């Protein structure tokens, strides 16, 4: 009774009944055995469209190095305490990419938590003074990526006391 599912497509091929005899099937299967899909047949050329294309010298790499898709690369950045900036860079400048996904994963491993309202990562500087089911309150380190107007202090980590992190903004 599955025929009811838009079965118009399974109209039989030229020969009646659409089914061949067993020896024909085996012959075709064996022929196909020498034309197996190759692993490369499933790989598409990596198309890389930069967000804001600019003309660069041809000697510069024009596409992303494969390593940026290797989770181990990001794990190493996460483990290296100077790597955190790179994680933040990938997070804020590689939106909607696998790199952003991996960077966020590493930041979480380092106990950073993303605040959806402020679009900012927070890390507990100490145990929260207050913690309920809905929020926690205390002193946090946060990553300030705002570089706006003449304010030169962005792109660094800052400390915020008496901050309330409401869980409904936790990503």
């Amino acid at each position: 009774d599955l025929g009811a599912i838009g079965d118009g497509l399974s109209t039989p091929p030229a020969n009646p009944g659409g089914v061949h005899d067993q020896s024909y099937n085996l012959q075709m299967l064996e022929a196909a055995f020498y034309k197996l899909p190759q692993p490369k047949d499933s790989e598409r050329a990596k198309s890389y469209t930069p967000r804001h294309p600019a003309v660069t010298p041809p000697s510069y790499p024009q596409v992303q190095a494969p390593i940026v898709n290797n989770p181990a690369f990001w794990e190493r950045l996460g483990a290296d305490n100077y790597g955190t900036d790179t994680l933040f860079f990938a997070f804020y400048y590689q939106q909607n990419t696998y790199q952003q996904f991996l960077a966020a994963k590493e930041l979480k491993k380092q106990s950073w938590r993303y605040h959806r309202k402020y679009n900012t990562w927070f890390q507990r500087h100490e145990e929260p003074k207050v913690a309920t089911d809905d929020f926690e309150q205390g002193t946090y380190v946060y990553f300030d990526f705002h570089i706006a107007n003449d304010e030169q202090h962005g792109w660094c980590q800052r400390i915020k006391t008496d901050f309330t992190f409401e869980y409904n903004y936790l990503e």
Partner: protein
Amino acid sequence: LGIDLTTLGLNLNSADNLHKTFGSPWSDEPAKGDPEFNVPQCYY
């Protein structure tokens, strides 16, 4: 007596789903290319 299925390159004890890295029925190489991932809208 069949095949020792542990030789087919699939880790049946894995805590993760196998389909994420299942490359092809014909080889036990894990899938190449970007694995499936989702980034939440609030990251955009």
